[in-house]
């Protein structure tokens, strides 16, 4: 590989051709401040508009200061990253940015985690000589959607969200609009997110450096439900939460905190602390049976829709409803684990504890923002009462725990309550890309062949590459499996299906890169791919730690079929555990009446 020698702050360094000054400096331990720049290593995500100019450096022989994040190293370049000229320019850039930024930091949802605030602290900004036009800024209304709050007065036009929405997710809900002071990132015609193709995946929120994009905060509603003596509160926790929550309390990324998490939820005062992993096992029973049903028809030569697509991820469901409505018969009709849990909690379990549906508040803790939207969908309500009342994120749960004076790291481990708390290793791997399909294969293989699996770990289905595929031998019957995470990769597979170029029998799709471990509601990773890798490894470790690792062997799941549901994909299951999809594509038609 070609290399280049250059000098940065009087120190020599040799870097591969194409390296930016920013990354070369990093190798020397020089951390040049950045704001708009965002690189998510290992996830093929890179935002480099070179727009904010906070990273400018002095290059000998160059008249203007150069943005370090987009300027490539050249042979014998002499760079100064900390001259007075550079520091003054950065201060001015920062002061200009702050001149039209609201300074309500005390009340801002991003306070303490805001990258602009961090820069203001780093540069010791105490006064600002520049005053921006307030009237222009305040012309944007704060907009609340089911999942995301957009406060465009706080937008700094780094355009990270636009990059995520368009390049990583190919959703196309967001674009830079207007120019000058009114310039922000918004939707077409600056409409409400509800009227855009937004999937509520929340990846925009996950990368927003400031308080412009934040999640809808349901913590106050949850506290009110807990303290209401007339309500029974039931909480469920998604798999990916247990490998990330610890980070909010200074624990090392990848710490598995299932026991502490359960203890914290009990200490918060929830009446019943259950596990979404339980309903993930239930999902496998339903989705696996549906897969085998469709495969059986296919083998008999009957007309059948294949490949079957997973349907656990609500952002992915939104994506195909908006962008590929013609394929809406392909995904499994099985509800997501969150919604299966809610439906069972407010029917089977409510009856068991003699609690009326209206008197039960069902809360979910999710790594996800789309789950907030999902639980509000009309088809998941009975007489207007939702199966899941409130969904909170991993971040919101951390805030609740801190408010309640709970010393998380010192908590003794506790167990989930019974009966909706028992789960298997197959359920916990739902938290990462490839996990749902591996769990489905573990069950479908044994049900189909009637033989025990020769090995439980399907390494061929694991990994963090955007699109993966494998053929699993079902005792002589080869089953072709596809996996995609990140919606741009999902789009590629869907285009192949539409073009008839796809020979998969089943495909798993997760909207977020990495799957739920990198959901829009997880602790902020600030582009550190190592954190995602650590969570990913923790998920498979949590699977290994479980005594039972196949969904159909979960005794609590076996019991509910015996006692209540009958059989997978049976009448009762269809009523409670399955759903249908809608065409939500915006289309332009000729008006024949005019």
């Amino acid at each position: 590989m070609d290399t280049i020698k250059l000098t940065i702050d009087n120190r020599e360094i040799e870097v591969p051709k194409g390296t930016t000054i920013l990354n070369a400096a990093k190798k020397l331990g020089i951390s040049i401040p950045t704001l708009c720049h965002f690189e998510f290593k290992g996830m093929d995500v890179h935002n480099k508009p070179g727009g904010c100019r906070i990273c400018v450096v002095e290059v000998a022989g160059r008249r203007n200061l150069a943005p370090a994040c987009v300027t490539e190293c050249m042979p014998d370049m002499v760079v100064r990253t900390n001259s007075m000229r550079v520091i003054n320019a950065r201060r001015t850039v920062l002061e200009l940015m702050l001149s039209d930024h609201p300074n309500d930091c005390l009340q801002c949802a991003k306070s303490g985690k805001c990258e602009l605030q961090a820069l203001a602290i780093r540069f010791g900004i105490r006064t600002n000589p520049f005053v921006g036009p307030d009237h222009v800024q305040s012309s944007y209304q704060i907009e609340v959607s089911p999942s995301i709050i957009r406060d465009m007065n706080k937008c700094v036009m780094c355009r990270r969200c636009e990059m995520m929405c368009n390049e990583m997710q190919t959703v196309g809900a967001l674009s830079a609009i207007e120019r000058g002071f009114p310039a922000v990132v918004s939707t077409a015609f600056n409409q409400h997110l509800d009227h855009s193709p937004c999937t509520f995946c929340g990846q925009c929120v996950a990368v927003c450096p400031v308080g412009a994009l934040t999640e809808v905060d349901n913590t106050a509603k949850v506290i009110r439900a807990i303290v209401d003596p007339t309500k029974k509160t039931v909480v469920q926790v998604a798999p990916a939460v247990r490998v990330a929550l610890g980070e909010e309390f200074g624990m090392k990324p990848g710490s598995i905190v299932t026991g502490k998490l359960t203890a914290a939820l009990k200490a918060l005062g929830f009446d019943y602390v259950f596990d979404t992993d339980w309903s993930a096992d239930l999902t496998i029973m339903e989705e696996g049976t549906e897969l085998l049903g469709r495969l059986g028809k296919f083998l008999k030569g009957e007309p059948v829709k294949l490949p079957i697509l997973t349907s656990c991820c609500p952002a992915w469901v939104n994506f195909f409803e908006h962008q590929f409505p013609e394929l809406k018969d392909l995904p499994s009709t099985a509800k997501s684990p969150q919604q299966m849990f809610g439906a069972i909690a407010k029917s089977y379990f409510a009856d068991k504890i003699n609690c009326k549906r209206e008197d039960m508040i069902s809360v979910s803790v999710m790594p996800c923002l789309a789950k907030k939207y999902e639980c509000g969908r009309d088809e998941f309500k009975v007489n207007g009462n939702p199966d899941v009342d409130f969904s909170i994120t991993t971040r919101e749960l951390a805030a609740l725990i801190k408010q309640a004076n709970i010393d998380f790291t010192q908590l003794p481990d506790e167990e989930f309550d019974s009966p909706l708390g028992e789960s298997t290793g197959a359920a916990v791997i739902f938290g990462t890309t490839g996990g749902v399909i591996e769990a489905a294969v573990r069950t479908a293989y044994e049900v189909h062949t009637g033989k025990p699996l020769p090995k439980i770990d399907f390494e061929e289905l694991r990994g963090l590459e955007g699109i993966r595929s494998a053929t699993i031998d079902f005792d002589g019957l080869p089953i072709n499996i596809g996996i995609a995470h990140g919606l741009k990769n999902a789009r590629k597979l869907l285009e192949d299906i539409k073009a008839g170029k796809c020979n998969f029998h089943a495909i798993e799709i997760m909207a977020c890169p990495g799957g739920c471990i990198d959901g829009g509601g997880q602790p902020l990773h600030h582009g550190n791919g190592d954190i995602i890798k650590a969570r990913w490894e923790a998920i498979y470790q949590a699977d290994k730690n479980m005594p039972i690792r196949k969904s159909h062997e979960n005794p609590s799941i076996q019991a509910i079929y015996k006692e209540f549901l009958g059989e997978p994909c049976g009448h009762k299951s269809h009523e409670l555990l399955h759903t249908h999809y809608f065409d939500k594509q915006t289309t332009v038609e000729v008006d024949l009446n005019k």
Partner: protein
Amino acid sequence: MDKIIIKMKKEVSDKIIEICDRFNNAPGELINVLHQTQDFLGYLPAEAQELIAERLHIPTAKVYGVVSFYSFFTMVPKGKYPVSVCMGTACYVRGAEKILDAFEKELGIMPGETDKDGLFSLTSLRCVGACGLAPVALVNGKVYGRLAPANVKNIVQEYRDMEK
């Protein structure tokens, strides 16, 4: 969100589709497509942007991003007699701002707006290449040069009379 169906007159959608086809529906031709569509319609309503996005396979948000960025594009229908006041350097130093003020007062609208009868719309532009006649304004394509604020009333009246 429920499904949104946007209705459009056939003659309009046919024309926009023809414009997009003329540029091979290439996403890189967005600005050219917008120019020609605005030439045809006089403005770029949301429906037209939705259709262009669909034909060029780009998100509607991106189309709107371009339309809202460039001051030449407008989402407000132009009046029957569009008024453009030149604010180029030569016109500016010879008092173009006062001419624009006079049009604002006479028409009761600000730049970028159309009056409620749909008769006049007002914009400013940069240099029409008639600097010798500065300050200059265009009304319905006709050039008026060496203007003084006092002339504005008569010019507007000329067109109002045509409507009688």
